[in-house]
């Protein structure tokens, strides 16, 4: 097992652990902090895939900006553990059961699919994730979706302003 693989498994375990902790933490602040851990783990994966740009952006935007914003909001609104009403035990039970079923389906599907190994992306290979190539593709082939994505942000911005502004 090379270093890459060790790193891969470590990051995977970390991401899963973080994701689970996001869900089970009672305190919203803790949830947010665990989410940041998840983002770091994912960024690690990006780097393993030779997509440095994506990794950095993921860190800056999600872990850096958005999560901090989350923390601010949560703290400003003083959402502590008591505000969360308890769900009924049945609901939790069913939730876990159906979620588990779905997960087992996915696993069985993926396990049963043939020669998956040949298809999975190879670690450290390919350089499409490098800034230079990404920029080229983004502004040639994918220029229209790029522009549409900018409109999408416009829409999100207007929406946020509309919902949030004072009368």
């Amino acid at each position: 097992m090379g270093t890459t693989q060790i790193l891969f498994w470590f990051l995977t375990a970390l991401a899963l652990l973080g994701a689970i902790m996001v869900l089970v933490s009672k305190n919203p602040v803790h949830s947010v902090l665990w989410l940041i851990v998840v983002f770091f783990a994912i960024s690690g994966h990006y780097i393993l895939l030779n997509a440095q740009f994506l990794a950095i952006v993921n860190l800056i935007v999600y872990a850096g900006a958005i999560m901090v914003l989350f923390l601010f909001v949560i703290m400003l609104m003083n959402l502590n553990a008591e505000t969360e009403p308890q769900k009924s035990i049945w609901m939790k039970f069913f939730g876990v059961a159906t979620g588990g079923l779905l997960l087992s389906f996915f696993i069985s599907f993926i396990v049963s699919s043939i020669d998956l190994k040949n298809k999975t992306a190879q670690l450290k290979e390919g350089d499409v994730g490098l800034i230079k190539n990404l920029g080229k593709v983004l502004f040639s082939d994918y220029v229209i979706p790029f522009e549409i994505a900018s409109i999408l942000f416009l829409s999100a911005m207007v929406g946020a302003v509309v919902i949030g502004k004072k009368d």
Partner: protein
Amino acid sequence: MDSLQLQALLPFIVLASASVVIILLIAARQSHTVIQITGFLMMCLVVLAMWYVRDVLPRAIMPLLVVDGMAAVFTGLIVFCVLIIGLFSFIYFEEREENPKEYYILIFLGTLGAAVLTISRHFISVFIGLELLSISLYALIAYLRNRNNAVEAGMKYLVLAAMSSAFLLFGMALIYMDTGSMDFDGIAKQLQTQGHSPALFVTGIGLMMVAVCFKLALVPFHLWAADVYQGAPVPVTNFIATVSKIGVFAVLVRFAQAVQLQSYHFAVIIISFVAIVSMVGGNLLAIKQQNIKRLLAYSSIAHLGYLLVAFLPGNAAGIEAGMFYLFAYSITLLAAFGIVTMLSGRQADADQLEAYRGLYWRNPLMGAILTVALLSLAGIPLTAGFIGKFAVLNAGVQQQLWLPVIVLVITSVIGLYYYLRIISTLFAETQVIFPKEKSLHPLFVAGTYGALLVLLILLLGAGIFPSAVIDGIKNFLCQGFRIINF
């Protein structure tokens, strides 16, 4: 990208610039009236642009988009719906205290999302289009945030739609993993070879279907529909019921055509299942509704179920039937929600059945239009709805899809039951004194009535001379603008 490709995209560029123009107008502190009129003109400009570029079609803008006849039909329908909804919006929002101006930006952005869906031939553009549509909708649904229902509905939609998007993405990822391609034709090509794994493909398609069913509000992914229809402002409800469904259906048709979805047995089973439970569930849930917006929500679930029956055969007849059905359904719902909009007052929407008691006596024109719209929903002959159902049934029978066809027939009897309930309310005697109609700019009152009349004429016209509409659709599909496959 060459200039012809740019030309082909002209309508979409105009559509995108419409929202920017509105933003600038707001920045210049223009009044609601000015914005409304500008918006209307911009939509007209989109139509003109579509007309102008008709000769350059069909044209693919590799790798993501293709502007062809089918896209033109669907986009045309979308723009038409938005034109009408825009007109209704004025009357609706002029009465409210909230500032209605940003509403138009969001509407146009949502429209652009739906329009992008119609020209998508690649997962990336599908996803971006869908998100553009959804994000605009989150804000639109919660637009009247002083009404708690609105925010609640917006929140619900946000959470559920985000989840369905997650399923969509996961499905796309699985298919990409399987075929190594994200554009429809590439996927189709890869499927021809032996090198792909059915299990991955099936799972991927299944997850994507979940998201599509969610957007089309089909049982069992319909739970958001009634709440959102009820909580959203009426024009937005109208928008969700028509524009967003047209866009999503368009992309479904294109994808299915590319990969020959209906030749996979599992897909047919799943779609039939969803269609049947939607027809049954939608109609049964509508029976007891007292709230007309919720009732129309459930009825639209049932109608989308009917639409899927047309989608099932996967042949040209089915697609034509589906398009006609969508057309008939859209103009009918536009008319019905148009009346709801007209009756809605300052405080609340006219969503209780009580508000319609004796409408026919108070305002015969509105009563008549709503009656015709409901009859069209019920599929009575000489309305557009009948021809739609006829075409759908024909498509189903030709392919010997007996089970869905029989369910369609039986459930439409149930449907008649609750439509008649509303119609008899319209004719009932009323003691309640309703406040006088609000004093609006006469131009807009005339415009709104004009729009309603146009819808009425379309409803009856498409019912009496359907071949004109069908030929039009065919013309777009076959001669003028072929659908292109690469």
